[in-house]
């Protein structure tokens, strides 16, 4: 019994979180400023596959299918993308403190996206711009410790701060130069994070990238465990460290960039969710990755629902993720007594 207890915990956690995700989805679809009852929500959803009399009218149907469903898909994709990319960065840099925000990937991607907006790029160009910005940021953040010949966790964190700072300044410049009547609002939207503008074409645009990179990361997730032992040990276990690390960083950066390209920066998710997953199922990434995906989706659906419902206006997501994430992270650190 004792031997398998972790496996049992993992299976239980997986099933529980999956059930929670299901109910959160239904709850999110039936909640909003426009009132649609829980029962009607389920009827409307089922009406697409079963013959049910339309008692709710076209408005409710429009709200569900055109407003709430794209955001729900967006929340699932983006929440899990940030979570799994955070888990990957934390493994590959052997450091539980890194995240897409901390490495400057998010702000780098925002710079890329903002530049693409300034030059009038379409969705694809914005996505590519976000990816290039993210890659440049991660390369910068990991090069600074190498230049200073110091591989401590602290220095990686500090160089992340340097890169984020630089990127936010560049965003500042871009905002200053942006056309206030048209582009500025779009860039501010990117900076604060929101799912308010997501519609189905966005979902179609990012889901292949998110699916492929997630599948690759999930496929190599046991090998990523070995990377956490250190380059030397991993290589002596027959792991092609340089290649594997490159694959993981590229995939994680593409995930962050794809998410950023349609939702803007959403802080805290990539940091907190993998921590929570490890707290539940231990550090083994074969378990952490699937749980992170589910938890990331749950967390962002809840946060986005709050953003829609709390006020007549839309609240920026980063405000809410920060309000929830910061105390939550403190609690996690206190529980885990993390060494630095």
């Amino acid at each position: 019994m004792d031997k398998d207890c972790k496996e049992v915990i993992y299976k239980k956690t997986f099933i529980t979180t999956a059930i929670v995700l299901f109910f959160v989805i239904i709850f999110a679809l039936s909640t909003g400023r426009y009132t649609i009852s829980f029962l009607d929500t389920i009827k409307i959803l089922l009406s697409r596959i079963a013959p049910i009399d339309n008692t709710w009218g076209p408005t409710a149907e429009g709200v569900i299918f055109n407003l709430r469903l794209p955001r729900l898909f967006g929340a699932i994709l983006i929440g899990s993308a940030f979570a799994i990319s955070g888990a990957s960065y934390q493994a590959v840099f052997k450091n539980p403190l890194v995240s897409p925000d901390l490495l400057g990937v998010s702000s780098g991607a925002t710079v890329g996206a903002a530049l693409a907006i300034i030059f009038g790029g379409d969705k694809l160009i914005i996505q590519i711009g976000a990816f290039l910005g993210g890659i440049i940021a991660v390369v910068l953040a990991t090069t600074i410790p190498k230049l200073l010949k110091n591989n401590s966790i602290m220095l990686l964190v500090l160089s992340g701060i340097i890169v984020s700072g630089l990127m936010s300044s560049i965003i500042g410049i871009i905002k200053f130069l942006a056309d206030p009547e048209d582009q500025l609002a779009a860039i501010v939207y990117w900076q604060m994070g929101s799912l308010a503008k997501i519609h189905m074409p966005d979902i179609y645009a990012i889901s292949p990238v998110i699916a492929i990179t997630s599948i690759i990361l999930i496929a190599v997730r046991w090998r990523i465990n070995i990377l956490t032992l250190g380059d030397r040990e991993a290589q002596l276990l027959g792991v092609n460290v340089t290649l594997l690390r490159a694959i993981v960083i590229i995939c994680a950066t593409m995930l962050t960039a794809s998410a950023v390209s349609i939702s803007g920066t959403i802080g805290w998710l990539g940091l907190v969710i993998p921590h929570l997953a490890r707290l539940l199922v231990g550090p083994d990434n074969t378990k952490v990755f699937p749980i992170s995906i589910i938890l990331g989706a749950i967390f962002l659906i809840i946060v986005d629902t709050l953003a829609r419902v709390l006020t007549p206006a839309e609240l920026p997501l980063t405000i809410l993720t920060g309000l929830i994430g910061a105390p939550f992270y403190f609690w996690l650190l206190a529980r885990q007594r993390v060494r630095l």
Partner: protein
Amino acid sequence: MKKISIVALLMGFLLIALTGCTGQPSADAEKAVAFKTVVDIMDREVAVPKEIKSIVVSPIPYTSMIYAIDGTAEKLVAIHPSAKNAWSKSMLETLAPELADVPDQYIAQNFALNIEEIAKMNPDVVILWSNQEDDIIKLEQMNIPVVTLTNGGNSDINEMRNNIRIIGSLLGKEVQAEQLIQYNLNVEEYFRNKLDMIQDDDKPKVLYLRDKELKASAGDSFNRQMIELTGGINVASDVKGAWTEVSMEQIITWDPEIIYLSHFDNFMPEDLYNNKIPGQDWSQVTAVKNQRVYKTPIGIYRWDAPNAETPLFLKWMGQVQHPNIYNDYVLEDDIRDFYKKFFGHSLSNQEINQIFNR
């Protein structure tokens, strides 16, 4: 030794800085010729040159307002970038082409001034919103006269008339200002008198949108007052602020019958009819289903904000909301008369179309 030289250097800089400062007022004293006193909206008594030759104007609509009162924009030496943007889309480009070369880079989007650049221009007067307290203090310290006006977005029509009066006395154009005010009063009177004729049930639910981000004219807005004065119900009146962002679901819940799209954004009724804005679904909104989405006209300025043409704005809204009640004037004729009377300009048909975004 080294320390002493650094101290000496610092003293030197200090000296230069001090003499630089003392140099300023003497230059002003030379300039001082004849002064008059203007009382601004904060009841400040401001001494300004009797004949104003150069004006920096930060409030966006007052670039066009000064033209409307003064008959020229030649005295403006620095304006807000958004005013410049509006100019290029409006009738003002035809009426006041001289604004083409007036710089707009010394005033930030948030109305803050680049004080040093303004000081370099040494204008006769700077016009600010009354809530720009920091800039008022800084300019006073530089001995540059400041005249303040009540902020447009959440003022009322009466405060706007006071603003017009202040500009009139500043420019010595009291007569023209009074005529504008009188026209304004007459139109308001007209609408107030007719308001009793409209039952609450007959009032349409109106949403006034500033931009694609769904900023709506909320409880404290000027536009709410205009909507109500012309017999409409502003759906966003319970929301705090002047222009406040609301969500799509909230709009669907309100289900407005009429939607106005401001000129602060380039969106058009077709964008709503064809559901072109990402993340929004207009298909089930009554105003869209009935094709009752209207782009606000732009005269010498965007009619969305309090400005010289606000009476025309009221007349336009009135006929959109209650064509049967406000049926005793012909809007286009009134616009032509207004332009003839106040700007001395006969509008061509093409220009009328431009005003109506046609």
